[in-house]
């Protein structure tokens, strides 16, 4: 492992995270390294999405430090899969058009005026997610699992170092959940991705995590997946989930 590989992609150091002036989480210490698969777990309203939003640069860190690649937090290369319910079904967008949004970072205005595009990349990402046949259908017409595949394809089209998924399995049946987890496992290997997945429940996905951040009562406890799963409080939570 090279020195660069062992450097954290993201580091929270004694950080307070929240909205406005009110911290939701305090004293957050978290280091995410290349190739890791993190589960950010906790009950509803515990602050999981606050971590994610700070990481993506959607809200500022209130106190402490958030660094990426050792630099002050700037514009990281993230692929973001939001909760599918957040996207308004009124928009008449096809799966292909939604996936193409992931490429918008790469096209500047002059390139676009010259008619440049990323059609091949979009096609490849849809194929990687098993969504080629959905390309011309409206996103709003797709099932929950199909939508999630398209949103993962969109995130991949940004060619990210880190894939961030916010509750990707919520409202999806068990069989489709398994298929999506298989997809994530496969993408992680093929694209050498670092993955962060936010979830308020844990069942099938816990086997994929290399690390877990447990968010509860304003604090974040982190560790290797095996250690966290066998530790007191968390093992009780998982037992009750299962």
């Amino acid at each position: 492992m090279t020195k660069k590989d062992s450097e954290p992609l993201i580091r929270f150091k004694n950080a307070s995270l929240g909205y406005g002036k009110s911290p939701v989480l305090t004293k957050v210490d978290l280091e995410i390294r290349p190739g890791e698969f993190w589960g950010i777990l906790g009950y509803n309203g515990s602050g999981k999405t606050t971590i994610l939003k700070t990481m993506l640069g959607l809200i500022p860190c209130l106190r402490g430090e958030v660094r990426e690649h050792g630099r002050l937090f700037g514009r990281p290369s993230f692929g973001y899969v939001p909760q599918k319910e957040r996207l308004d079904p009124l928009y008449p967008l096809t799966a292909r058009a939604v996936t193409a949004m992931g490429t918008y970072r790469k096209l500047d205005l002059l390139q676009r005026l010259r008619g440049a595009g990323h059609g091949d990349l979009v096609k490849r990402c849809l194929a990687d997610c098993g969504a080629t046949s959905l390309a011309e259908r409206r996103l709003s017409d797709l099932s929950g699992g199909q939508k999630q595949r398209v949103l993962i394809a969109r995130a991949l089209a940004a060619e990210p170092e880190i894939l961030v998924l916010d509750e990707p399995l919520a409202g999806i049946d068990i069989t489709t959940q398994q298929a999506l987890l298989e997809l994530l496992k496969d993408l992680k290997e093929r694209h050498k991705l670092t993955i962060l997945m936010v979830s308020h429940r844990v069942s099938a996905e816990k086997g994929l995590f290399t690390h877990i951040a447990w968010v509860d009562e304003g604090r974040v406890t982190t560790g290797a997946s095996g250690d966290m799963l066998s530790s007191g409080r968390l093992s009780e939570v998982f037992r009750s989930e299962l």
Partner: protein
Amino acid sequence: MSILLDMLKPGFLLHHALWGSVVVGFVCPLVGVYFVLRRLVFWGVALPQVSASGIAFAFMLQGLGLNFMSGGEAGERHLAILGAVVFTVATILVLAMLERRGAGLSEGRIGALYALAWATSILFVAWNAAGETEMLGLLKGEIVSISESDFHLMLDIFAALAGCMFLFQREFTLVSYDRDMAVTLGRNALVWDLLLYLIIGLTVSLGVMTVGPLVIFGFLVIPPLAALPWARGMASLSLLASLLGGLSAFGGFYLSYTRDLPLGPVVVCIACAVYALSSAARLLVPRSS
């Protein structure tokens, strides 16, 4: 048929009114698409009235002897445009800021704003009784008396606004559809929002000066609603809505001219008929998957 051919001739007496309406009919739905998709339809009611209030404010200034624009009637018109633009853009920015904060009831705010804009329009005009007739004419969108150079300037501005809407469609769609994704991709969502609001402000202000607040509200909302069930992407939605708006304006003008009916209400009724036909056809035609 001969009337239709007469209308298309360059020397047609009302050619400013005809082509002004048609151009507004084409351009307004391009920004109206974002009102509908962002679920801000009621902005479309309030903003044209705010624009009208800005025009009335300009007339009040003239009544008080504060017209700092030279050029007689043209100066008055330029002052009215300035009033409309300033009022509309300032209001959009305040509304957008309040929406972002998520404070209070959005519909309540728009309702209060509409009532205020309507009331101030009347009060401002009361300060300049001489301007009342002209004000009524402007609010009804009577652009017959506009000079040739002003008319062409207005067309150029509308063309530029339409060009911007197509050129920046990806950015406007991205920040409207998934703001978080836009920020994650390094887009400055606030800047794109401001640009969109500025374009909306200019379109609504100039549109109100051209065809009046009622027609502008109609053009902002009805053609995008009629186009929405058939669109398969933002480009097709914009183009179809724009086409329906332009055709409604032309059809409305023809009917108004031949039947001697007031232009604005006829145009809005035609646009509504198109919307009804579109909705009925959507029920009959199965959606392909």
